[in-house]
Structures are given as structure tokens and as C-alpha cells.
């Protein structure tokens, strides 16, 4: 395979990497500032990532009777007090303006008979979300794509950005790998915005994140950026035989053929019960009621009471955890925000959407529609800030040595004749991280053992990944990025010696407020992965004079 250096070199003020709602908003808003913008996406922008699967958009609007204090109090409590209140509040306050943006660009929302948008209360009825028009079938992101093009942004589809360019401590662009060509692309940009979504290990149970292989945070980490700790896991379940989410895409658009109707048995349903027929306990009203929050199924599995079933209208469906393996709770993945303009700790590099680890939702998600609204909000901030910074800069000249270094890094797996295939290393990573007693029910000795395995993968397997064509080269870089992210996840889980929200430590089953009302961040230092504890300001703490059981209504096993 010959990956020659070439003429594929593009320059812009602002480079947006990604193709979902955050990328589209960031590109439009940067372009509106007068910047020359390029959007580059691994897939086809407007069909990428989780956005086309989204149902709801949170829109906070005082004119609809919404009370900021009540919404904030709800999130602070359900997040178990480790949400970042600045970002929670700004995502709410600016969500309605972003909803108006969507309307003005032609995105449709479900309307009632009175012609007004249908406002769906989210359990337990404190917050609300608006529903995308069902008939659009995920095509609302395509409407965003059209707006991106109308804004004068150049879109380049099907190029995986695999390495950032850094010069004098500043991010100045990146190198991209096209899906079907040997010729790498070089992008030179005065500001770069990562909108690459959340992160996962290509779990079979959740197709929406199959493209989201931790590329953004891995590139940023290698370049020296600070990354948010990854101890708060997402806990989607799936059918044991088939992925979740499948019928959503197909059903919205077509009559499902008879032989595929087996796909329509949903893992969603009324309630879950265990092998002994016992219904899993209801959560306390004060706790998050969001479906994929807390580890109820995992606790049952650990107690030896699996299989777990979900009762549904179409019969009982056997379900299993780990559908979202490798993904953190919404907004608990990604780059550490170094300022309120969505800038990372590296000059020239911004992040928005799920790629920005702003802890909007803390340790337990309770805000349906809030994740996607938060993407629109942070992308608007990032797009405007990046454009303003870029427009103030003079000419940018990037040394050929840096571009050549990045290209060599990207090409390396294609230059090896053998070693380890990306598919095999990915499968090994999945098998290593998937068991419930590693990624969900955590304990120091098991985490340490798994970390030893992942370190071996880092040191011995990743440097010898090989690729025979551009598709496999993409897989090789995805694999490398996922293995790095797994190390981050394990180290973060070991670091937080308490339990909270979706982070459960069997050896530390209680919340430890005096020590762990804190966030964690990760940074490379002298070749080592360093974990840093960042205390949460005391004004955001719960009242420690109230009894623990009152502060935290949800009990962990072993407390």
C-alpha cells in the first residue's frame, strides 16, 4: 500500500471535526462570524454519530413557566452534586435560543392540535423536552447539513482525522485519512474544534456509537491536552441477541419487511425483573429516573440473579448490560474545558458537544433532551470563540517537519507487513473490558489486573497494528485510540475511591463527600498518564449537615 505525500492540503480559519449536531452548529456559528470554515467528518456529515438517533431536544423557556432554580436543583441532586453548575446552567439558559435556531433553519418539531410544540415532561416531571418530528426519521440532521452548506462552509466527508498538528505549543491543524484513498489530507487551521461525539469501544449493542472511537480525546491527549476523567459509565442495556435502536431507523422510514420483523422486539419496556421473577426495585423519587442511569441490572448479575428480563408489550425480552461499552455518561467523556469559551488546555484547540467533558450532567444523567441541547449550546460558544480568535491571528505557516511527522504517524500501520490486526485487537479489548465485574462493578484488584492487560496492549500490540488498505488503516487508528481510552477509564476508576452515581466501587461503596466532591482529569506527564483531582467549589456542595441518607436517597450494595 503506497500512501504518498500529495497535494491534498487545505487551509482555513476554523476547522470543525465531526458531523453531528455539535459539528453543524459550530461550523454555522463560526462561519457567521466571517471565518473561512471547513468541516471534515469520518462519515457523512448529517448522518454521523448519535445525532440522527436523537428523539428529544430540551428547551428551557421561562415563558413556558420553566423555573431555572427548580431545574437546577433537580439536576444538582440527581447528578449527585458533581455536575459543573456553570455548564448545566448555561446549557439550560441558552437551549431555547438554539431551539429557535433549529426552527429558523427548517427543523420540524412535533406539534399538538393547537399548533404549538408538544412539550414532554421528563420524569419526575421537573424538566421538559421537545420531540423531533417523527416523520423526519432522523433527517433533521440533514437539514442542519444543508444550513452548513448555505453558510458557506466547505464540507469534506469520509475522512478520519487521525493526528493533530502542533507547533510552538499550539494546535495548527491535523492530518486526515480518506476512506477510499491512499492520499492523506493535511488541514492547516488557525483554530480547530473537536465535535467528534462521545466515545466507545465499538460495542455490538449500540450502533449509534460505532464510529465514536475516542479519536478526539486520544489525539488531544497525545498532543498534551487535559482530558476529563472517565469513571462515570453509561449503562445502556440491549437485547442479548440483537442491538438496541435498530427499529428506530428502519421503522421511521419504511414498512419493515416480514423477515426483519424480529428486529422490532424492543429492549425498552415497562420494568425489569431477574431470574427469580423479582421485579427490580423502583428508584427513590428523588433519584434520576432516566432509563440508563444506575447499575441495577449489574447489581443483580453480581448477586447471581441473572438473566435479567424486560417486560414489554411484545413479550419478555432478555437483556444484558454493556451495550454502550466504553461510553461515559453524557458529557462525562472528552476534553477538559479550560475556560468558558469551550477552549481546551491547548491553545488553538476547542471542543464542543459530547467531545467536551463539561460534566453538565454530573454522575447520573437525568435530563432527556439535555444532552443534545447541550451539544448545540457548547458548539455555538465554541464556533463563535474559535472564529473570533482565528480572525485576530496573522498568517499561519506550519513547518513541513510537523506535517511530515503526523503523516508518518498516520501511515505507520500501513507500512507494516504483519503484526496484529485491528479487528483482533479491538475484539481483545472488548473481551477485556466487557465483563460486568470490570467496567461496572469495580474493585481495585480487578481494575489493576485489567490495567496490566491493557498496558501490555499499549506497549506490545498497538505499536504493531498493521493495515492492508485505507479501511483497515482507519480501523488501526480507531483501535489505538480505544485502547488509550480504556487505560484512561481504568485509571480513573481506580483513582476515585468512592461510589457515586454511575461509578460503583465494591471496595468503596459509599459516597465520600469530604474527599470526592471533586472532578478528575487526565494528562500526559513525562510519558506517564497522570490523574489530577480538581475540587468542586464549596458553594456547590450539598449541605453536609443533612443526614447522608437524605442527601443520597439511592443506596449502593454494601453501604
Amino acid at each position, binding site marked *: 500500500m503506497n500512501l504518498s505525500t500529495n497535494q491534498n492540503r487545505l487551509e482555513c480559519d476554523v476547522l470543525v471535526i465531526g458531523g453531528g449536531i455539535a459539528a453543524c452548529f459550530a461550523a454555522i456559528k463560526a462561519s457567521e462570524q466571517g471565518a473561512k470554515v471547513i468541516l471534515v467528518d469520518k462519515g457523512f456529515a448529517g448522518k454521523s454519530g448519535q445525532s440522527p438517533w436523537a428523539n428529544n431536544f430540551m428547551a428551557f423557556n421561562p415563558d413556558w413557566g420553566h423555573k431555572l432554580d427548580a431545574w437546577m436543583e433537580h439536576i444538582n441532586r440527581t447528578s449527585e452534586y458533581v455536575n459543573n453548575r456553570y455548564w448545566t446552567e448555561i446549557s439550560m439558559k441558552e437551549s431555547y435560543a438554539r431551539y429557535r435556531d433549529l426552527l429558523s433553519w427548517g427543523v420540524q418539531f412535533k406539534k399538538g392540535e393547537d399548533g404549538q410544540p408538544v412539550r414532554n415532561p421528563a420524569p419526575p416531571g421537573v424538566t421538559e423536552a421537545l420531540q423531533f418530528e417523527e416523520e423526519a426519521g432522523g433527517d433533521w440532521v440533514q437539514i442542519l447539513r444543508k444550513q452548513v452548506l448555505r453558510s458557506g462552509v466547505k464540507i469534506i466527508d469520509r475522512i478520519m482525522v487521525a493526528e493533530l498538528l502542533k507547533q510552538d505549543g499550539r494546535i495548527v491543524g491535523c492530518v486526515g485519512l480518506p476512506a477510499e484513498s491512499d492520499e492523506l489530507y493535511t488541514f492547516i487551521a488557525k483554530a480547530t474544534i473537536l465535535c467528534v461525539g462521545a466515545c466507545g469501544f465499538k460495542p*455490538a449493542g449500540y450502533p449509534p456509537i460505532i464510529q465514536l472511537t475516542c479519536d478526539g480525546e486520544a489525539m488531544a491527549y497525545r498532543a498534551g491536552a487535559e482530558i476529563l476523567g472517565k469513571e462515570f459509565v453509561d449503562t445502556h442495556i440491549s437485547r442479548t441477541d440483537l442491538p438496541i435502536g435498530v427499529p428506530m*431507523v428502519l421503522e421511521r422510514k419504511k414498512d419493515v419487511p416480514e423477515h426483519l420483523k424480529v*428486529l422490532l422486539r424492543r429492549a425498552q419496556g415497562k420494568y425489569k425483573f431477574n431470574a427469580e421473577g423479582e421485579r427490580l426495585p423502583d428508584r427513590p423519587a428523588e433519584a434520576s429516573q432516566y432509563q440508563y442511569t444506575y447499575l441495577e441490572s449489574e447489581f443483580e448479575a453480581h448477586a447471581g440473579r441473572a438473566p435479567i428480563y424486560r417486560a414489554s408489550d411484545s413479550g419478555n425480552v432478555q437483556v444484558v448490560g454493556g451495550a454502550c461499552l466504553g461510553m461515559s455518561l453524557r458529557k462525562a467523556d472528552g476534553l477538559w474545558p479550560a475556560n468558558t469559551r469551550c477552549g481546551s488546555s491547548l491553545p488553538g484547540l476547542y471542543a464542543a458537544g459530547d467531545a467536551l467533558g463539561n460534566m453538565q450532567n454530573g454522575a447520573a444523567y437525568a435530563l432527556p433532551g439535555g444532552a443534545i441541547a447541550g451539544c448545540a449550546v457548547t458548539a455555538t460558544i465554541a464556533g463563535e470563540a474559535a472564529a473570533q480568535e482565528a480572525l485576530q491571528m496573522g498568517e499561519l505557516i506550519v513547518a513541513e517537519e510537523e506535517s511530515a511527522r503526523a503523516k508518518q504517524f498516520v501511515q505507520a500501520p500501513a507500512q507494516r507487513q504483519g503484526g496484529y490486526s485491528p479487528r483482533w485487537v479491538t475484539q481483545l479489548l472488548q473481551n477485556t473490558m466487557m465483563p460486568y465485574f470490570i467496567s461496572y462493578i469495580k474493585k481495585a484488584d480487578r481494575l489493576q489486573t485489567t490495567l496490566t492487560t491493557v498496558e501490555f496492549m499499549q506497549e506490545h500490540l498497538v505499536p504493531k497494528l498493521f493495515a492492508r488498505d485505507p479501511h483497515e488503516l482507519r480501523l488501526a487508528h480507531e483501535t489505538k485510540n480505544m485502547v488509550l481510552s480504556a487505560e484512561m477509564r481504568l485509571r480513573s476508576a481506580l483513582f476515585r475511591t468512592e461510589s457515586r452515581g454511575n461509578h460503583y466501587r465494591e471496595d468503596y461503596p459509599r459516597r465520600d463527600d469530604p474527599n470526592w466532591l471533586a472532578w478528575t482529569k487526565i494528562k500526559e506527564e513525562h510519558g506517564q498518564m497522570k490523574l489530577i483531582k480538581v475540587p468542586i467549589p464549596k458553594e456547590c456542595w450539598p449541605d453536609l449537615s443533612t443526614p447522608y441518607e437524605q442527601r443520597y436517597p439511592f443506596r449502593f450494595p454494601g453501604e
Partner: protein
Amino acid sequence: MAIERIDPELCNGCKRCVDSCPADVIRMDRESRKAVVRYAQDCVLCCWCLAECPQDAVVFTPVKTSPLFTSWG
């Protein structure tokens, strides 16, 4: 294996399946200018290709198999 093939008699070469596939499974054949399944083992059963195809040309089974896990590979 989920996606099996794309019926060349029905495919109109619109490329919508290629663009909608998040796993880069489908490619355009340069000679026939029709879509072909190139990396079937990477299909994740998301069904986007089925949903997008205006010709219903995608041949799809509701079964996903994984390769046996081996000592190296």
C-alpha cells in the same frame, strides 16, 4: 452477517447506502457504478442502508455473528 449483498439489478448507484453506513462497509464499484458490500464483517446491524435505499436493493438478514476469538490474529 447482517448485510449480505446489494442487488445489482435493483441498485441505481445513488450512493446513499455508502454515505449512511457508519462502519464503512459499502463501496461503489468503479466499473459497474453500483454499490457493493466490501467489508461485511464490520456491519453492526444499524439498518441505515436499508432505511436509505430508494430501491430496496439491500439484502439483509437479522443475524449478526462474530468471529471466533483466537489466540492471536
